[in-house]
């Protein structure tokens, strides 16, 4: 079964940087939203090469989140 993985790093101020692997398309963002309270606090979203792959196998994103 495919594995979904999220690596969360909490910086010294409580800000979060998160990276996903194993998600398809926009579902990685949805996973972030379900996991973390992100509304209005995302400072940067960087799509990885994996994200741009159109196939269903793996897609991913790197998301940096700044806590307010």
């Amino acid at each position, binding site marked *: *079964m*495919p*594995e*979904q*993985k*999220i*690596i*969360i*790093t*909490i*910086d*010294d*101020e*409580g800000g*979060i940087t998160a990276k996903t692997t194993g998600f398809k398309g926009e579902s990685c963002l949805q996973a972030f939203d*379900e*996991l*973390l*309270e992100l509304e209005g606090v995302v400072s940067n979203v960087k799509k990885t090469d994996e994200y741009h792959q159109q196939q269903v196998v793996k897609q991913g994103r790197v998301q940096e989140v700044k*806590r307010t």
Partner: protein
Amino acid sequence: MSAVIKTTTPFVIEPVLFEALEAVGAEPQRVSSEVLRSISQRNQIQADDILTNRSDYNGRQLFRQQGERWVLLHDSDEHFGSVVSQLSDRRYTPVSRFLSELCLGYEAAYQQHLDELEEQERIRLEEARKARVERTRQQAIARAKSQGYSVKEGRTSTGQVQLVLTRTV
């Protein structure tokens, strides 16, 4: 006729005044109910006054809070000025000189007081920061577990909290 006057530094922070009095050798003593019963003098003392080891015609010179300031009460003519101290090196100095020296001591103690406040504020901010990180960590772990992730916790090379969440779908 003309004149120049200089007022004393307003003594408004009691612990700072107390420290300054100690620094100039005035051996301050807070007036408690016990002290009230034991001392009788022309210059009526009240609870919470700060006695000094300086004495004059009215008795012990003391500081009393008037409004926000602490004011030295003493005999204006300084009759029978003396120092009541077990330390033999204490000599009575005129009030004006005493207050001048006390001003210097107060300013030094006040600076130290500010430094301590700054340190307390730094500690408070640091504790708030740690609490913020901990709160974020706990929230992330709780939500991850509720959504079926297994959680592995570690630290990055720079000491930051790192959570590795995995689940199979």
